[in-house]
């Protein structure tokens, strides 16, 4: 299906001065797609040129449309010497290839240069005309929609979930090619940016093809990762879940689950269904009870035919973390697998079999773990890597689960109203448990058995009953290791891994009990490898599930219980622990109803159980759920150090934090929202680091970062940090500095967003706090109450035009539209009316004047702000007013202070959307999907 791409260069503004003599610039623009290049005229002597070019037309295959970005280069014309480049803009055409996504890209883009950062802005207009598809052996997959969101996007309804899709492409990293020695840093950075852009385009297209083959038309929970393997190359992987309305594809590792509507006819029906997938008002009323799954594909439901391949036969994996009610039947627990590999040069980029095989292996393992837990599927699945020189740790984790088979076959069921405790019930056979656990009858239905604790990687299901509030729980761990090479190094790391996992798990368990909670959601364990240490960081959101039994207390037992002094010490410690537990119960408002003890231990003798468990873990990787120290009556033997560490946790009033989408136990959200990114690098300067010393430092670092966040955001109190996402890395030593001092860096890259909520109990208090937050937030929310009444009582069109006019009459010409960003899949208090396409951007920034730019912090601060600006500009150009499911996947930072140089790579992704405030929506129902959306967006936010 060939197409015609049209681009028009309208104007530029705030250009840098390129001619020192005149303090002006003679700018012109090159527009390049594939191998075709067009140029505008030179607009002489201006920093705000008006090119107003003709339409530049490119006739191209849709395969290229998917792979290639539109490349716009702004240059300064020079009569005597070579033209100087001012900067570039890469525009991903993909959102224009879906009929229901964006129709055009139009707006101001920052002109970006990898050395100088943003240098002015350019106004561009891009359109695509697609011809009908005539070729059945197509290589392209136009029309398959991609979503980063790990739930069914809110204005769609999944008719069916197909399952896992994965793909990976490899290439040589331009940074490591011989030519890099002779070209400028700028040329090398641009080559790299372009290559990665091409690779992710290709990857997305290939995953799209797989989805079409499966009969899906979308990928949800699309997760794409880059592995910068240095000399050995560059891998881009993606996983996702194929579904009828959304598709996820990721290169290498994870699987995507697709919820596809009738696979075959989905393709034709989607475009033709005249009220596009999201018909805002109708679904609302229909599904009023069940949150906000909009029906996009409702018309198809009638003619649903069984999809060709229902659940993906090979890997029944789902990258989703949030499911329609009734989808999850039982949840078994976390399954994870890791393996350590030695990287070698990728010889043939066209056959990335080695990498494929590695991941295949790991997925098989995950599958067998799930089976051991009596589950046939894995949900909340993700994959990651950590690379240090030639050693690479591949990790995958997910949650074993039993899914409602009807979803796989027939798609969504509206009538499914599962019991709120169903997912807690054990999926495995109680007489043949894969690991030792204390079972009790469910505290809600009293009919089925439940475990005493539950760890999962998914979000808390909406139907789950929770006692009290949740909180962020982290386990942190450092392990030193000897510096080694190759095989020896890999072996050393593999030997350490099980111990680390075990210890992280114990820490999590202790902290959970200390908070008197019994379940973890959104568990994410990251193991990073450095030259002489391994770092483990586990984050999760703890909650008290009403269906599960109350957690037992923690008992301190001395190792040598002879000494009297020691006993006394233990006793005081025990008291402190008990006090903390009581205090935490207050803090998190956990007051479960007293219940009679009815322990139903499994009748299988202990020995047999442990044997069973070992058999599962014979593979080098281990099941997380294995923990010998489970059990209510079990004593925890804690070392003194670790006790104090876990007791002295930091609590700040008015602040809550979690790493899941929503905070369990808090329901009254306001629309105030602040997304932020925080990066820290520490330098350790002592050669004789011990495990314990490192642990202490690492814990302090994390706690300090959290404290800093609380302080920064204090004006938003009461508020909640949701989706707090910590990432740690131990950069390679050679990148840091030479010399006698041994240096280690820990980079904590939290991508956190804040949400205000009202927590009060009395009504008055509620209102008081509400107004307070409004002031703390920003004008948009302030304006809203005043403008609303007029809009409401006036007939629709009038109200609309009035608000439009008011926006136009703003004094400063064209104010920049506000674009919200959030790692959540929704915006509180609003309704997403349209998904415009996926945002997936990769940037490199380099400097050779580090000191002049304010040192490393100044450099990175500026770069992150620039990345935000470019994301916002792209979203605004698509006509959107927010990015949801935003995440910063990669933030690699390297410096060489001696040469005054630094380089940073950032990869961000998310879904561009249009949202309307819930209150506005009633007033403006059917217009939403029409072309005027951008103006509405501006109303809501300016």
């Amino acid at each position: 299906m060939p197409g015609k791409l049209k681009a028009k260069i309208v104007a530029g503004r705030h250009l840098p001065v390129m001619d020192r003599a005149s303090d002006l610039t003679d700018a012109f623009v090159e527009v390049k797609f594939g191998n075709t290049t067009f140029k505008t005229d030179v607009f002489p002597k201006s920093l705000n040129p008006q090119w107003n070019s003709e339409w530049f037309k490119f006739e191209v295959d849709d395969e290229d449309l998917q792979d290639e970005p539109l490349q716009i280069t702004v240059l300064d014309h020079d009569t005597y010497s070579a033209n100087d480049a001012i900067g570039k803009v890469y525009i991903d055409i993909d959102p224009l290839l879906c009929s229901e996504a964006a129709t055009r890209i139009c707006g101001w883009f920052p002109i970006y240069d990898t050395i100088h950062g943003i240098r002015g802005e350019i106004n561009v207009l891009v359109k695509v005309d697609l011809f009908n598809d005539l070729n059945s052996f197509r290589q392209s997959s136009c029309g398959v929609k991609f979503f980063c969101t790990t739930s069914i996007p809110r204005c769609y309804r999944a008719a069916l979930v197909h399952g896992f899709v994965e793909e990976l492409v490899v290439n040589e990293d331009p940074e490591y090619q011989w030519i890099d020695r002779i070209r400028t840093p700028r040329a090398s950075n641009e080559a790299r940016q372009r290559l990665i852009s091409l690779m992710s385009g290709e990857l997305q297209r290939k995953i799209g093809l797989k989805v079409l083959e499966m009969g899906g038309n979308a990928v949800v929970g699309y997760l794409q990762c880059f592995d910068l393997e240095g000399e050995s190359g560059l891998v881009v992987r993606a996983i996702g879940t194929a579904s009828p309305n959304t598709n996820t594809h990721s290169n290498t590792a994870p699987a995507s689950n697709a919820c596809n509507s009738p696979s075959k006819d989905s393709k034709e029906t989607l475009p033709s269904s005249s009220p596009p997938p999201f018909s805002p008002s109708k679904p609302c009323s229909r599904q009023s009870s069940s949150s906000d799954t909009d029906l996009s594909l409702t018309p198809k439901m009638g003619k649903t035919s069984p999809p060709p391949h229902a659940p993906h036969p090979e890997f029944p994996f789902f990258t989703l973390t949030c499911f329609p009610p009734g989808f999850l039947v039982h949840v078994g627990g976390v399954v994870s697998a890791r393996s350590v590999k030695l990287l070698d040069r990728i010889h043939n980029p066209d056959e990335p079999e080695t990498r494929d095989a590695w991941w295949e292996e790991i997925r098989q393992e995950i599958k067998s773990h799930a089976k051991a837990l009596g589950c046939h599927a894995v949900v909340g699945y993700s994959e990651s890597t950590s690379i240090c020189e030639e050693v690479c740790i591949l990790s995958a984790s997910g949650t074993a689960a039993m899914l409602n088979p009807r979803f796989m076959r027939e798609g969504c069921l509206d009538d499914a109203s599962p019991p709120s405790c169903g997912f807690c019930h054990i999926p495995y056979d109680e007489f043949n448990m894969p690991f030792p656990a204390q079972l009790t009858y469910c505290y809600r239905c009293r009919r089925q058995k439940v475990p005493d604790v539950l760890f999962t990687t998914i979000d808390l299901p909406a139907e789950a009953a929770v006692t009290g509030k949740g909180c962020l729980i982290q386990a942190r761990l450092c392990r030193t290791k000897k510096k080694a090479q190759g095989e020896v190094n890999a072996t050393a790391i593999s030997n350490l891994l099980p111990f680390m996992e075990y210890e992280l798990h114990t820490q999590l368990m202790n902290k959970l009990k200390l908070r008197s909670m019994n379940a973890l959601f959104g568990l994410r364990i990251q193991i990073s490898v450095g030259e002489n240490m391994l770092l483990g960081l586990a984050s999760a959101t703890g909650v008290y599930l009403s269906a599960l039994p109350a957690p037992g207390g923690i008992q301190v037992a001395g190792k040598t219980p002879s000494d009297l002094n020691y006993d006394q010490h233990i006793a005081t410690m025990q008291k402190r622990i008990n006090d903390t537990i009581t205090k935490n119960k207050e803090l998190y408002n956990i007051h479960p109803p007293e219940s009679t003890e009815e322990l139903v231990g499994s009748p299988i003798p202990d020995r047999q159980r442990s044997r069973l468990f070992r058999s599962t873990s014979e593979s080098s990787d281990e099941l997380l759920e294995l923990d010998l120290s489970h059990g209510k009556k079990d004593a925890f033997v804690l070392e003194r150090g670790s006790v104090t560490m876990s007791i002295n946790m930091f609590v700040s009033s008015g602040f809550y934090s979690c790493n899941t989408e929503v905070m369990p136990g808090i329901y009254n959200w306001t629309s105030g929202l602040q997304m932020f990114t925080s990066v820290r690098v520490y330098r350790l300067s002592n050669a004789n680091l011990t495990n314990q010393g490192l642990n202490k430092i690492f814990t302090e670092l994390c706690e300090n970062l959290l404290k800093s966040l609380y302080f920064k955001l204090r004006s938003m109190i009461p508020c909640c940090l949701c989706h707090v996402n910590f990432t740690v890395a131990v950069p390679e030593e050679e990148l840091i500095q030479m010399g006698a001092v041994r240096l280690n860096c820990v980079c904590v890259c939290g991508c956190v967003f804040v949400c205000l909520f009202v927590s009060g109990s009395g009504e008055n208090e509620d209102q008081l706090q509400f107004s307070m937050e409004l002031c703390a937030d920003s004008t948009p929310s302030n304006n809203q109450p005043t403008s609303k009444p007029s809009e409401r009582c006036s007939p629709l069109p009038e109200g609309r035009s009035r608000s439009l006019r008011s926006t136009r009459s703003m004094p400063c010409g064209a104010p920049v539209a506000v674009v919200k960003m959030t790692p959540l899949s929704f915006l509180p208090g609003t309704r997403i009316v349209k998904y415009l396409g996926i945002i997936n951007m990769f940037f490199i920034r380099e400097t050779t004047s580090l000191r002049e730019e304010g040192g490393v912090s100044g450099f990175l601060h500026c770069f992150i702000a620039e990345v935000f600006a470019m994301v916002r500009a792209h979203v605004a150009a698509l006509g959107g007013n927010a990015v949801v499911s935003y995440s910063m996947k990669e933030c690699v930072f390297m410096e060489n202070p001696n040469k005054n140089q630094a380089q940073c790579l950032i990869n961000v992704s998310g879904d561009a959307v249009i949202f309307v405030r819930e209150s506005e929506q009633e007033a403006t129902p059917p217009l939403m999907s029409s072309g005027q959306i951008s103006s509405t967006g501006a109303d809501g936010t300016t």
Partner: protein
Amino acid sequence: MRMSVELDVFVGNTTIMDEEVYQFWLDGYTVNDAVKVRMEGGVLEECEASAEVLHSDTMDQYRTFQMCERLLHSPAKLANQLLFQIPPHRQAMLIERYYAFDGVFVREVLGKKLSKGTKKDLDDVSAKTGVTLKSCRRQFDNFKRVFKVVEELKGPLVENIRQHFLLSDQLARNYAAIVFFANNRFETGKKKLHYLTFQDFAFCAGQLISYWTVGAVDNMVEDMDVDLEKQFLQDLKELKILITDKDLLDQHKSLVCTALRGKTKVFNEMETNFKNLSRGLVNIAVKLTNTKDVRDFFIDLVEKFIEPCRSDKWTAGDMRLFLTHYTNSAHILDTFKHQVLWDRYMGVIKSCILKMYHD
């Protein structure tokens, strides 16, 4: 075991700014000083934060402000730049505060040429006023920037400043005064003038701009509000007759005395001094064609009029009464033909003197 923070960055999608820290930055505090003051201010207890946390936060904010500074130099850019997402009311706050200045500082440079030479002397000014050098430089550069921009614009001065720099009306008026003083190089630094505040001068500048400049007659010429009208200054020579013509002077005196008799406690002093005072005021008018005398305008007002009155213990009320009748009586003088010119001159003189006369 030691560790040091190598890099510490926090970036929000909506740029987070603390007004208090912004003020420290504007005032030229170093990060460490700002942290110290903040700690004393008690934020720590409020939020159980440590000094480190405060330091990190202050650094973040300082960096943000430094990056914004470039934009603040042409405030209109702040609204349509893409790098920072700042709500409009915050933008207004940033601009207004950035262009705000210290009264003590502006008194030191008011009427001076905004040149490199003056800038070099800023460390003396800083030492004298207690305003940090950094802050002095910012304020000085602001004056200079505004001066440069409006120099080339047509139309009313205050309005130009307001539109170009998006300032509040009050602040724009103050800048207009600064530009006006710098352009005419009025002497304000003499010891005798020390008692006058910037606001006194700003008021006088407003009067001069409104009534004595080219712009008071024609509102579409360049520099209309910064240059005094040449023809007007030339015409002022005609007023000389009020003091050179003996009859006229006596007539003027008796008219004023009749009107004031019994209405003021300083009548006798006024009567004795009338001729001197009148000579003083008219001589100022006559000499305004010389640039040098324009510069000394305020000095002359103080020396020739305000000081004599003050030594006679006139009240502000006495002053008002005298000036009103002094101005009005001239209209009744038979041979005096320059009523319009006289009103244009005396209107401004009267309000300036009243403002400058501190009891």
